[in-house]
């Protein structure tokens, strides 16, 4: 088995795709690891001028006071497009160009990776097709429009529950047919080797920056780093540079509505793959997955579409098994409260994914938080506004702002 992390990883894909993975592995080693033709220099320059890197590391004063510790925020929400996703998308689209590919495909769930890929493809003048489950195209219309504005084709997927895992399967099917001319920009540290390493390599710029920034600022390394984890690209990006340090690493998964599973319906009302999943093979890799007793993959759930996935990156699964990363869950309600807390006290409206990491601060023990903590704000929350309002009201989250500013005037309008 090649490209493994302990028990996990590997290449479980149709034979037709194997030569493409071999080619991609070669390109990864040559361009990404060895900077051939100045590839990484161009990547960093484009991420600076087009993508807005490096992102700031900001002290969160209100949170620091609330938890009686120093809380720093790594502001990935300030990357172009509003999330850490662009870093991987731009890296892979640029790599595809260096490899001489003529077309880009990608899958997207909530639309963040799709919009990032569409932006990168427009920026680098590559034709781009995004697969997105029909359920997601309907509930994420603004993101569909953003992708269309960037001239990407958006292809709805009408299979199964019509969400992220179906979109990944469909993108893999396209790739099986178009592999000679097309690069598949996978959106997280998942999939067959070398994707988990390739995506981690691009995203690790997050922790390369934050490690340098916190040392410059405080003269020391943090006690802990916390990041939300779905597929795991934000978590791996936030952790990688700290792996050899004496820094505790916390991955926060979506606990959804409940950690119990409805096996008969094939539904896990959460996306807590690291904590409740078991070893299996999904989308090209052996990793931890949410599955029933027979090995059928279950539908996952989270209020945050970006965490809503039944698998997780094999390297992250391995780091959790090895005890290097601690996995935690935060449920929908705590995450929603986290959106409001960060918005009200720090002036940052976070993505629902990020809000899981924010919510965890409430639940973590004093020793888990330590003296200094770096939390990655993986994205901004504009995309989630409707969900946040609807779900917060439905659940009576106490921090929810009053929205009766929208009520019609009581007596038919007296603005005179």
């Amino acid at each position, binding site marked *: *088995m090649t490209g493994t992390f302990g028990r996990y990883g590997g290449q479980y894909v149709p034979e037709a795709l194997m030569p493409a993975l071999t080619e991609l592995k070669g390109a990864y080693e040559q361009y990404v690891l060895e900077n051939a033709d100045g590839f990484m220099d161009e990547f960093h320059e484009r991420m600076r001028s087009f993508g807005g890197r490096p992102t700031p590391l900001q002290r969160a004063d209100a949170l620091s006071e609330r938890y009686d510790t120093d809380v720093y925020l790594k502001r990935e929400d300030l990357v172009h497009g509003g999330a850490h996703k662009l870093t991987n998308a731009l890296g892979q689209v640029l790599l595809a160009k260096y490899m001489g590919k003529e077309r880009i495909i990608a899958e997207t769930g909530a639309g963040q990776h799709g919009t990032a890929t569409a932006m990168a493809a427009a920026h680098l003048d590559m034709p781009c097709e995004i697969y997105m489950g029909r359920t997601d195209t309907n509930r994420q219309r603004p993101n569909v429009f953003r992708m269309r504005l960037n001239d990407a084709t958006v292809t709805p997927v009408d299979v199964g529950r019509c969400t992220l895992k179906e979109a990944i399967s469909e993108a893999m099917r396209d790739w099986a047919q178009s592999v*000679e001319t097309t690069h598949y920009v996978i959106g997280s540290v998942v999939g067959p080797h070398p994707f988990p390493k390739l995506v981690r390599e691009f995203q690790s710029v997050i922790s390369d920056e934050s490690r340098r920034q916190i040392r410059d600022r405080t003269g020391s390394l943090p006690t802990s780093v916390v990041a939300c984890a779905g597929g795991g690209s934000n978590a791996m990006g936030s952790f990688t540079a700290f792996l050899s340090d004496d820094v505790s690493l916390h991955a926060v998964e979506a606990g959804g509505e409940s950690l119990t599973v409805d096996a008969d319906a094939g539904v896990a009302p959460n996306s807590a793959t690291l904590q409740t999943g078991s070893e299996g093979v999904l989308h090209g890799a052996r990793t931890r997955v949410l599955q029933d007793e027979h090995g059928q993959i279950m539908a996952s759930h989270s209020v945050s579409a970006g965490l809503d996935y039944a698998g997780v990156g094999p390297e992250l699964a391995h780091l959790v098994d090895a005890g290097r990363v601690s996995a935690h869950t935060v449920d929908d309600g705590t995450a929603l409260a986290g959106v409001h807390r960060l918005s009200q006290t720090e002036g940052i409206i976070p993505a629902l994914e990020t809000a899981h990491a924010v919510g965890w601060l409430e639940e973590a023990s004093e020793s888990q938080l330590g003296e200094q903590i770096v939390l990655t704000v993986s994205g901004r929350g504009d995309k989630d506004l409707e969900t946040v309002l609807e779900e917060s009201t439905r659940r009576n989250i106490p921090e929810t702002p009053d929205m009766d500013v929208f009520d019609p005037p009581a007596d038919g309008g007296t603005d005179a």
Partner: protein
Amino acid sequence: MEAPMHNSAITAAFDSGPAFVPYLTAGDPTFEASLEYVEALERGGASVIELGLPFSEPIAEGKTIQNAISRSLAGGMTPVRFFEFIEQLDVTVPLVCMTYYNLIYQYGTHDGPRPFVERAATAGLDGIIVPDLPAEEAGPLHSACQSHGLDLITIVAPTTTTDRLERLVSLCSGYLYVQARLGVTGARSDVSEQTAASLDRLSDIDLPVAVGFGISSGEHARTVVESGADGVIVGSALVEIIGEGHREDESPESVAQRLEAKSREITTAITKLQQQP
């Protein structure tokens, strides 16, 4: 290219002329109807039958077989039921299980593919095909198949390089599955140029070569055999008959008759060919 020596029932089924190898998803749309459908394939002249054990994420399948998989899963098919299905089938031709690796990996209480393969052997299966298991990951399944006398059938793609081809052939027994074109399963009406190219480079291996992906008619099958294939694999064109029947509420007897007729069309087309060398 050296392939191991074989005396399998599957290889023997290719001895009497070009072989017709149909595929159906087991349990589509119900357990009972599906038993009848598989038996109809044998009456139609099948030499070997591939039976799909449905997986929730079938990344190598086109729409037609994805829909069959959904119908079968909705009808309650599981690995446990699949083996009961094999045991209840009243056919004599060799049977091959086609499924994805996670179901093989999860079966039984022990890690790894052995419990699945052991049960497959006792149920009466002769071979296994796993579309998401390339040579790199096939070691454990290959050794389990060898110890239980099952053929592991590997898939050769148009993109397969020469060094990979040798590795795939060395793992393979029964027949070599040649993917006729890039992409996913699904019926098409033309014959790919990739097919002829694939067959050319396989002319000297000592395993039967069966071509699949896209073969939809007798004429189509004949062209493939004329290009040098020892057999044709037909899936989506047959599965679509079941899909149509399901949509239009056709009786299982009528669907079975149409499956038999389609099988006969292909068998006749490739058998005639053998009589006119």
